């Protein structure tokens, strides 16, 4: 497509030295350039997706590693259908059932409860984060310290149980709440018939 146009026009410089003006038509090249740009723009993924790390307890040596947890520190969260969440504190004690409460995934819902329950840890983490932003501590010390705080004895233990009707979004949301509310000790547990019966009264 490149055309070499000799200056054949007779009006112009007749007397001047015959210059061979080379002129390349760049339009097709630019067209191709933009076509490729469009192609790359449409196909690339600029932002990599994030991941959330979780570790589950191993199934094998579960029995000897089973840790008895204090009922006063335990909190059970049940993921229900249609984005419903139920929670109760402690366990069945002296023939008295714990009272489950119905809530949702909004900031005013389960998060408020978790933050209240985990108050001391949240405050400690906040203090650490402030120290980090003031550059009093390094990122590494922040990490190790916050891990210690999160796993301290006074921190609550959250048991997450999902009903079959709940979705993956609910599951991720609740794990996310664990992270937001700085809860270090939580476990994903299979739901029991007892739990199902317990929430049946308020699940409507």
């Amino acid at each position, binding site marked *: 497509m490149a055309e070499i146009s000799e200056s054949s026009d007779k009006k112009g410089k007749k007397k001047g030295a015959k210059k061979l003006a080379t002129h390349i038509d*760049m339009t097709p*090249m*630019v067209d191709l*350039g*933009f076509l*490729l*740009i469009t192609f*790359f*723009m449409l*196909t*690339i*993924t*600029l*932002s*990599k*997706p*994030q*991941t*959330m*790390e*979780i*570790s*589950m*307890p*191993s*199934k*094998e040596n579960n029995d000897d590693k089973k840790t008895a947890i204090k009922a006063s520190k335990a909190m059970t969260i049940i*993921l229900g259908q249609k984005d419903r969440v139920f929670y109760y504190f402690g366990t069945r004690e002296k023939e008295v059932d714990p009272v489950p409460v119905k809530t949702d995934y909004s*900031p005013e819902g389960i*998060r408020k409860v978790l933050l209240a329950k985990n108050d001391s840890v*949240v405050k400690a983490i*906040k203090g650490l*984060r402030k120290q980090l*932003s003031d550059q009093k501590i390094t990122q590494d010390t922040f990490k190790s310290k916050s891990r210690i705080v999160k796993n301290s004895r006074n921190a609550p233990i959250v048991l997450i149980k*999902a*009903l*079959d*009707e*709940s*979705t*993956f*979004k*609910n*599951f*991720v*949301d609740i*794990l*996310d709440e664990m*992270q*937001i*509310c700085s809860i270090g000790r939580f476990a*994903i547990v*299979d739901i029991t018939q007892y739990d199902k019966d317990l929430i049946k009264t308020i699940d409507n």
Partner: protein
Amino acid sequence: MTAMCDVAFLLLTFFILTAKFASQDPVTISIPTSISEIKIPEVDICKIIISKDGKVFFGIDNQEKRDQLIRKMGEKYKIKFSDKQIKKFSVLDIWGTPMQLMPKYLDLSNEQRFKPENIIGIPCDSTNNELAFWLQFAREVNPKMKIAIKGDQQTQYPVLKKVLGTLQDRNENRFNLITGLEANPLDDATVTKK
């Protein structure tokens, strides 16, 4: 004209250099969001996709590893794959076909593979758990592999439970859930507002 051309090619260079092609998933997945900021690694990754209707897909990176993987799976299920089929398999990013149908699936053309009737999902029931073998052999060909689960928002929990159960049975207790990014509501900016 020259200036525009320059800009165009500069942009082109930029896009070529930053390009990392989005692998096409067999099903559309809308992932849930979380505040987690850990990036997903690019190599040594094993991806498990759970679709909205509960189909499970499996994939690992690296062509050579996939080549080894399908050979091992073929041995296990006593299916003979031709070299052509193995070659075709090694370029698949992610797959969800029961082993019995795998040779047939590999003979299909690229367009046919994305037809709904050919998207079946890997069986992971307790009676026929192919996912467990995929995991086992994938771990054998790549001991450094990390597992990432990508699920749709609407995926029902029982399927997830099956997959998590399979992972636990195989003693894979650390894994990642792929999520989109969401701002932390408790970050300083929002906290001070309150």
